[in-house]
């Protein structure tokens, strides 16, 4: 911690350590988009295509149809020499182009500690090659995540995300993503979120996911129930955030409220399995690990990662109550610039689907922390959310762009994400 404090005192790195900010550390033109991957750079939000001019950034409406420059960084610019029509106008005008953002917690940021780091049997120099990037990304892997992932997975499983689907649906949405999730965030932390970058006049609409799926019921206190968010607080927190979003999001945006996770599954699936540090000698189960963490008052979810069944049930009951608050808000509240929809029981359905495929549910949980959904669960979850929203409200993600093939033929990979 001393080492970390020293790093945090460096003027350039101060922002990284401020809990409320999720803005890029290295951002020359201060437009909140960066050409640097980690430190809240383009692993977290679309890569800036000109970091010396703050009028270039992903998600803006094109300036002069990007006739001579790619102002919105989606890789589409210039004009067709045959008819002199700008490509951005030809391919993107009227195609419901939009971005995706996520306000969330460690699951949305894709917290992951590679099990190889703790497993002596296969350890090599290669094992820790990703440690510096992991540190500078707060041990999160947003570039592989359920909402904003785009890189091929290097941590097992595969990458599927809402951003990739939205991009596939309409290539004009290229690079328009912002992952504003932060480890440990609950609805209370999100009330004061100030990292979302969207100009109501200049930018395109967005689909914002509100995905704090555990920290309102998960804490490390021994008297955990007393520290959980109450339904009344939840309503106040979510409404405050939504009212704030109404002042930031362009008209025609959508907000998707995601229900809390099915944390009761953790104990049922893991308690008698061996943790990575116990696999060699078969001497540490998750039950033992959870007990050790509880003893140190460092259990990230005392309510669910606990051998006390009554406590686990009470935690589930509260989580259901908080999800009901989200559902009720989606039905009853109206906002000027966006509508609100609710998605429930994602992880229950992901687990059920995995079981139906004849697979072991252990494969869906992060092995080191025994707590977070892993790469496979995130990919399955993204697919499930996409399909559900498309079925329920097809206008949320917009229609398929008929010019996608032409865009690919002319602009290739559009300059990467």
């Amino acid at each position, binding site marked *: 911690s001393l080492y970390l404090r020293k790093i945090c005192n460096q003027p350039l790195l101060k922002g990284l350590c401020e809990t409320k900010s999720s803005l890029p550390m290295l951002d020359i033109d201060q437009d909140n988009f960066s050409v640097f991957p980690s430190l809240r750079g383009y692993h977290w939000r679309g890569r800036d295509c000109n970091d010396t001019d703050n009028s270039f950034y992903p998600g803006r409406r094109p300036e002069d149809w990007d006739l001579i420059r790619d102002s919105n960084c989606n890789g589409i610019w210039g004009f067709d020499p045959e008819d002199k029509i700008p490509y951005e106008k030809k391919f993107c005008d009227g195609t419901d182009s939009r971005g995706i953002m996520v306000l969330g917690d460690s699951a949305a940021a894709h917290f992951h500690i590679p099990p190889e780091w703790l497993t002596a049997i296969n350890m090599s120099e290669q094992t*820790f090659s990703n*440690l510096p990037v992991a540190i500078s990304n707060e041990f999160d892997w947003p570039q592989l995540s359920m909402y904003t992932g785009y890189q091929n997975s290097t941590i097992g499983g595969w990458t599927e995300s809402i951003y990739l689907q939205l991009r596939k649906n309409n290539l004009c949405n290229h690079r328009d993503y912002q992952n504003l999730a932060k480890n440990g965030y609950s609805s209370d932390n999100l009330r004061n979120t100030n990292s979302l970058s969207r100009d109501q006049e200049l930018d395109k609409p967005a689909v914002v996911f509100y995905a704090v799926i555990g920290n309102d019921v998960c804490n490390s206190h021994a008297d955990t129930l007393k520290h959980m968010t109450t339904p009344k607080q939840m309503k106040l927190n979510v409404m405050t955030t939504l009212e704030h979003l109404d002042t930031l999001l362009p008209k025609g945006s959508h907000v998707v409220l995601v229900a809390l996770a099915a944390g009761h599954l953790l104990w049922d699936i893991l308690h008698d399995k061996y943790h990575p540090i116990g696999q*060699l000698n078969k*001497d540490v189960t998750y039950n*033992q*690990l959870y007990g050790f963490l509880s*003893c140190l008052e460092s259990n990230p979810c005392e309510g669910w990662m606990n051998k006390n069944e009554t406590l686990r049930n009470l935690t589930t009951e509260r989580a259901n109550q908080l999800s009901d608050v989200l559902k009720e808000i989606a039905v009853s509240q109206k906002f000027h610039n966006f509508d609100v929809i609710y998605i429930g029981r994602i992880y229950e359905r992901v687990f059920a689907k995995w079981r139906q495929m004849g697979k072991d549910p252990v494969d869906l949980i992060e092995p080191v922390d025994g707590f977070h959904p892993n790469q496979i669960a995130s990919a399955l979850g993204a697919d499930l959310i996409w399909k559900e929203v498309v079925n329920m409200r097809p206008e949320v993600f917009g229609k398929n762009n008929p010019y996608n093939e032409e865009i690919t033929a002319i602009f290739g990979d559009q300059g990467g994400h």
Partner: protein
Amino acid sequence: VSNRYTCIGCVLMVTIIEQLAQVHNNSVQEAMTTLCGYLPEEARLRSTCIVLAELFGPDLIKLINHKLNADVICHAVQLCSNDPVQPFCHVFQKPKAGLKRSIKYAQWILKESSIMRNTEFL
């Protein structure tokens, strides 16, 4: 609980070193060198590891050679709390001789160790 994260970190590190020595049939000293060698030089991770190995290595070797587990070792070097008011947290099964007795035994092994005297300062 004071020094909770130091305790978790210590238990993990000692376990990894013990298991590296076991897997490669190496001495504890060699396992520590191997582990530090695996770390990248970026952000001074490798050199920090080497400094920690220099600092805690000799004591760690003594303790691991006495077949003491990570819980006992981390309490003995005071990276896990020995405060009588706080519980003695452990992740492995308690040793046959009991946790408190094993910790006392480990501390006896380290009685001449300068690191034991300096851990609080560290």
